[in-house]
């Protein structure tokens, strides 16, 4: 095993990188307010008449009379304390609004993630192990098709068939209690996952094929190691790195696609809140959700990075040299 110093260096470098990225991202999101046409205060109120208290709290939160950098630091310290400000349309704490809707979105994400992992990986593995045969061609044709089906089309078609025509699933709503919620979220999760199933299975298939062609796989075979063992211990194991990396990048798309799916199914989650807020120019909410999505993406990828050395010991070898 690599010395502790090396591991610490590796982890430290990644965590530092993530901190810089998050800081820069938060700055960009805050500064975007100034890219909007007009005075920030006018933009924020959009001609609405706010109560004097609300107006005061708005000026206070954004510190609109302070120098720019002070405004940013003030806002940032609020965010770090869990204070995302006040929503214009709901006249409520953004944090409270988001908290109320997080459950639906998280359940949806978890269900989609399970579908993507199980179906995507399986299809990719089956395809690669049968390269050139009928099963592989089927996987390729299916994934070519699914990768082109946008989540809102999938949503509409699933509603049309399974909710309207067959009546197996509800058309709208998030459900109450865990089981009911899962029942309500089944179609949305399927709609959300289709494209990603295709992408993950593509990546899995090509990573597996690449590993299958390696000489050490032939060496293992030449030594009488059974095929299933070779596939498990050398091919799949070695292919995990690239699969994980691509999956990490896909997380960004998944988070944003959930906005579409939630809108299509009338679910009350983070995504649909985002769209509503755009419609009402509710900047504090848009700002908060943007930051959460970016943060989630960055953290998931940090996790992927931290897992890499466990898969490929050479990852740390590069670090020792720095």
């Amino acid at each position, binding site marked *: 095993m690599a010395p502790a110093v090396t591991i610490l260096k590796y982890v430290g470098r990644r965590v530092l990188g993530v901190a810089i990225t998050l800081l820069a991202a938060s700055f960009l999101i805050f500064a975007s307010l100034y890219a909007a046409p007009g005075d920030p205060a006018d933009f924020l109120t959009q001609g609405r008449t706010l109560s004097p208290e609300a107006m005061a709290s708005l000026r206070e939160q954004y510190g609109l009379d302070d120098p720019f950098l002070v405004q940013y630091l003030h806002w940032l310290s609020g965010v770090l304390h869990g204070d995302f400000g006040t929503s214009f349309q709901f006249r409520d704490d953004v944090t409270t609004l988001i908290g109320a809707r997080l459950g639906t979105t998280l359940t949806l994400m978890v269900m989609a993630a399970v579908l993507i992992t199980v179906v995507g990986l399986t299809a990719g593995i089956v395809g690669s192990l049968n390269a*050139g045969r009928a099963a592989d061609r089927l996987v390729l044709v299916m994934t070519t098709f699914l990768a082109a089906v946008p989540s809102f089309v999938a949503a509409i078609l699933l509603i049309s068939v399974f909710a309207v025509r067959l009546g197996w699933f509800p058309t709208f709503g998030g459900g109450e209690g865990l089981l009911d919620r899962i029942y309500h979220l089944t179609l949305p999760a399927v709609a959300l996952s289709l494209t990603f199933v295709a992408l993950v299975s593509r990546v899995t298939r090509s990573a597996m094929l690449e590993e299958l062609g*390696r*000489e*050490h796989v*032939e*060496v*293992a*075979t*030449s*030594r*009488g*190691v*059974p*095929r299933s*063992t070779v596939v498990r*211990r*050398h091919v799949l*194991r*070695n292919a995990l790195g690239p699969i994980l990396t691509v999956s990490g990048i896909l997380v960004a798309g998944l988070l944003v696609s959930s906005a579409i799916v939630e809108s299509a199914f009338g679910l009350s989650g983070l995504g649909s809140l985002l769209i509503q807020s755009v419609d009402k120019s509710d900047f504090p909410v848009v700002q908060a959700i943007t930051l959460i999505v970016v943060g989630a993406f960055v953290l998931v990828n940090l996790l992927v990075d931290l897992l890499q050395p466990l*898969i*490929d*010991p*050479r990852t740390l*070898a590069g670090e020792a040299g720095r």
Partner: protein
Amino acid sequence: MSTPLLQMSDVWLRLPGIANRPILAGVDLEVAAGEVVGLVGESGSGKSVTARTALGLVPRGAQVEGRVLVDGTDVLSAPADRLRRLRSESAAMVFQDPRAGINPMRRIGDHLTEAARFAKRGEDVRAARKRALDLLEAVGLPHPERHLKQFPHELSGGMLQRVMIAGALMGSPKLLLCDEPTTALDVTTQKEIVSILARLQQDEGMGMLFITHDLDLAASVCDRVHVMYAGQVVEHASAKELFASPQHPYTAGLLASTPSLEVVQERLRPIAGTPLSLLADPLGCTFAERCDRVMEGLCTTQRPELVEHGDRADRCLLNQTTEVAG
């Protein structure tokens, strides 16, 4: 003489869609216990494919004909299970590039003991580990205990090739196939690896097939040497005879092309042209278009057979016609 460990007779291998000519065109080859047989030739001659075919490792889509017997088992028709047992117990292979041939994500110890743990059920893991330690020592690695826990990237190419050899010997094979085992290494490392291989071969009484493109190396390592060109064995003889009096123009050409350390050469006499393309499939002798002694009208229309002359053989119409004439 006992039955050979490896016996290939009239082996053909075709790759439709990729090559127009057969990759192997009627290869005959025997390796007996305690014997080191060399296989030399340039790239594309079919040396590596021959060794892989001996273990039943044929490329997907390949059409194979002929008979390949390893230690009495017919490799080409053996069921998967029998083949697996043969690979883990009777025959093993050392590959050219140890960096590519050992899984970079697993420990050296895992590479060594894997076959024992997964190929044969119920094998004692501790016994496998003990044997791995012994073998690492036998191939001259300084810290066997530590190496077992290391990853491939922590070892040099020469050390890894020793690991590869130790891995091949884990199942105590009777037949060892070495596919250019030193080509990726420096000469000083090559010398060490070759002497390790020679010592182990003698100690264990293994039969060894030694593939190389280096004629001098083949001459120094092997008892008998087969020369391959375009998928055929064009000549074979004892190492000494082959280098002293090559009978096939290709063998002679190879020797004349090799710069020497001993003799001052005014000018090398290379073979003209380039090795036969996979897309070409000439009617006559595969070497005819490069041969400086080609007999027009004969060599380009007639495929020579491998004809024995005493304990050596060659595949050249020149030698056969002079024999008929004389």
